């Protein structure tokens, strides 16, 4: 819903996306009292996605603008272990559907998010549609879709076709793991990181799909990318 126009300066083209993605996190968000009062305060039902929800409402209001300040920086601690991480991601994902459903927007919004450029490069918007379908498709999703088809074919006994389709999924997986490869870690650590990355994505996306369906929207979030941030001084 809220987008920092994901435009490459070299492309110089602005897409007027009707559905964007969330930008501000609750642990670093400042709000004007009058704005909060006008848009109706935090939604007490939207636990863990209350930040997404309030930003969605502010951005859809006729007056209020969201602003990002470069100096406003915080440092956040990570979860201690894999279980805690997955619980956190599940919590984020499962409640993500509610703010989307609350906007009342309907239509089909399909976005292709390029894994290399980390930005939306293609999109389709069909507005006359009774429900909300909002998908940010990446290589990660394509790879899984192909693997799913391969599994179904294998079960049905079409082994060769299944193998062929599974092979087709490899380049997509390879691209999906590009950021992990570029992290500059040793071989074993890269494998370990890939595992964590994979599980995090799986948890978050599954949770978002389930949470979305519960609220009556079909929401498919993109797999997680390293964020674009301005370069700031290293921590003390």
């Amino acid at each position, binding site marked *: 819903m809220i987008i920092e126009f994901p435009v490459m300066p070299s492309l110089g083209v602005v897409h007027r996306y009707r559905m964007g993605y969330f930008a501000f996190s609750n642990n670093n968000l400042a709000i004007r009292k009058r704005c909060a009062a006008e848009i109706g305060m935090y939604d007490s039902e939207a636990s863990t996605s209350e930040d997404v929800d309030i930003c969605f409402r502010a951005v859809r209001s006729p007056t209020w603008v*969201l602003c990002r300040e470069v100096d406003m920086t915080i440092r956040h601690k990570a979860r201690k272990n894999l279980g805690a991480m997955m619980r956190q991601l599940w919590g984020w994902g499962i409640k993500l559907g509610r703010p989307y459903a609350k906007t009342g927007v309907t239509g089909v919004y399909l976005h292709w998010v390029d894994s290399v450029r980390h930005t939306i490069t293609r999109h389709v918007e069909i507005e006359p549609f009774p429900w909300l379908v909002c998908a940010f498709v990446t290589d990660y999703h394509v790879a899984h879709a192909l693997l799913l088809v391969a599994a179904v074919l294998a079960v049905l006994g079409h082994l060769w076709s299944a193998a062929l389709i599974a092979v087709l999924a490899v380049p997509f997986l390879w691209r999906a793991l590009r950021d992990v490869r570029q992290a500059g870690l040793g071989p074993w650590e890269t494998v370990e990181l890939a595992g964590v990355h994979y599980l995090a994505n799986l948890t978050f996306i599954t949770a978002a799909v389930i949470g979305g369906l519960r609220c009556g929207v079909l929401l498919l979030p993109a797999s997680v990318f390293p964020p674009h941030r301005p370069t700031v001084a290293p921590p003390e």
Partner: protein
Amino acid sequence: MTHRPATTHRRTRLATERTHAPPDDDLRGRRITTTAETLGSRLLFALPAARSTALRLVQGLAVLLSGVGPFGRMFHEVYAFGLRTVVARLRRHAGVHSIYGCGSFFDGGCLYGHSDIDFIIVLGESAPRSEGVHYEVGRTYERVRRFFPFLGRWDEKAANLIFLDEVQAGFPLLDSFRVRMKQGRLVRLWGEPFPIDLGPARVTTGEIFSECDALVRTALVTGEPQSHSQLFWKRLFTKLQAAAQSIELTEVVEKIRAESGRLFGTHPDRALFFQWAAPERLCTSFLRLVAAFPAEVRRREEGVTLRFTVEDADGTASGAHASVQLAAPRASVEAVLHAAAVEPTHQRLLAPVPLGLMPQLFYFPADRSMLCAEIGGGAYGSIRRLLQAMRRHGAAGDALLVRAEGIVFVVSHQDTYTDVVPLHPLVHANVYAWIDGKADCTMPRSLYDEQTAEASRCAGALATMYARHEGWVPKASVPCVYREDDLDTIGNAFSMLRSLAIVSEPRSYLVTTTAIVDHYARRYPAIRPFLADLLADFRFHRGLVDRRPAAPNLYRCLHQFMRQALTGATTIELDDHHQGLAISVGIITRNRATDLRQALASLERLTRRPDEVVVVDNGSTDGTRAVIEESASRLPIRYVFLAEPSIPRARNLVIEHASHEVIAFTDDDCAVDPEWLTGVERGFMRADNIGIVGGWVLHWPAQEPTMVDTYYGLFHHNKL
């Protein structure tokens, strides 16, 4: 840096921004390769040679056939159908006000297969630049037009756009539109009549000069196969002749007629299309004819002498040659000159000056000297090579001056394209004089009057724009986050202030940012502290100093200052640029006493202290209360207890209990950076309708790093 809502710095660019993209030929800089390009088109046009041959064949066939009885009629129908389709698709966009067409198709002199139709699309007030509707219009145009190659060169995808709201505000109207409209050469294809009065019905000298510049540019950037056809050049010569005729330059008209007769004889157009042309020779003779214009105008009309004083960092006059205080041109500019393999007869470094009297934001900023290369012969080849080198080696914002055949050009590289812009010897008389080492120049009286009137109208429009954006961010109709690029905003303001200093007496060339600030501080002594902080902030953004001045209201004051300075106010009234607002910090915590202690400790280190800290204890059972009480002596803490664990409710409680208008939330497992609240304050001070300010969440590494911790460090906090 990448967003495009209606921010002032984007809007103020309008004064000189090209309202149309340059033609998409081989010299049009980095081509915008979108994934929308099909594989087929990529394969088909992989080789420029194959592409140009194919184009030539198709065109040739059309030119030949259109002379044969029924085919002429057929091509007419094809053109008409294409025209209808383009118009029908464009008018579907809600923001389009009207569509105009121009070209020989409408006057009957059309050579089917060769002649183009130019489209000018007027966007109404509901589609200002900030809304980005023009990108969609551009894409539609591009998509439709590629199916109708006969409507013009089929790689020509650019449409000319006019934003009605900008013209109404006072920004200059596209010159080609104005001239054609006055001469009655524009055909309204769809929409309402153009609502704005274009002034006196007669075309002015300035408008014709701008037409000439456009022709020169076309002559230089148009590549094969057009440039190898005699017809292309003949059409250029004819257009130049018409331009000279419309301002009654009889000697020039005679010269062009004679030269044209010598070069092209009396062959019919269809035959000329197939005759091979030598672009190098024709371009040289074309440029010489263009250079004859100013001479006759100068003879005909008395001149106004403009005297400039040069101010650099010391306030001393240093003359045209770059002084030691100026940075050298970027290495990439030198690399371009080297790669182009042009051997300049002269190469000099000049102190940067505004180009002409109109406000200019592009090309040559203060503090860096401009490079001017003089080329002896072969202007066509050299400039094309320079463009190609600029496209490969140039960085965004690079520019250099080139003088060839007596005409000065700016070769520049912008974000998405490379371009060459001719500077007219009379309109940009100051640049010509500057290159020759003189600070004074003369301009014909009528041109001077026209340029100053235009410049002051433009300054007025800019002032209106600053006033409109002062303390208010116009809301875009698409969901977006607003981010101000302060370097750009201040840099643009400085560019405008430099331009302003050369149109008002005493005229000054301000070649460094220090000189700009000193100049205006002398003119408006009361706001000296504001200007000093503005300069300090600018220097921070350029990486010259480590700290920003503590001036949260600087941005709004800049708007107030520009609004008044641009209208030539004698005194300036500003708010206090140190003015801030009271901020409450809100923290929600639950059973994380150790983390909370660290979070509160980070609040104590803030350079801008919080006015209040509201901590909501969401039913903790550990030592949270004790931690808060311990910090209470060092921070103005207010403790609120909420037994029921609910984060949204706790946040609402913070908002209710906070005694100040702005509440900055952070969490108990976070540490804020010392400048955190400075950022919050600056964000809210920018405009009254900024409701939410957000920032960046960085990783706080654990003491014993695990893979999960590394993962958070690399991928954390990016929910899409």
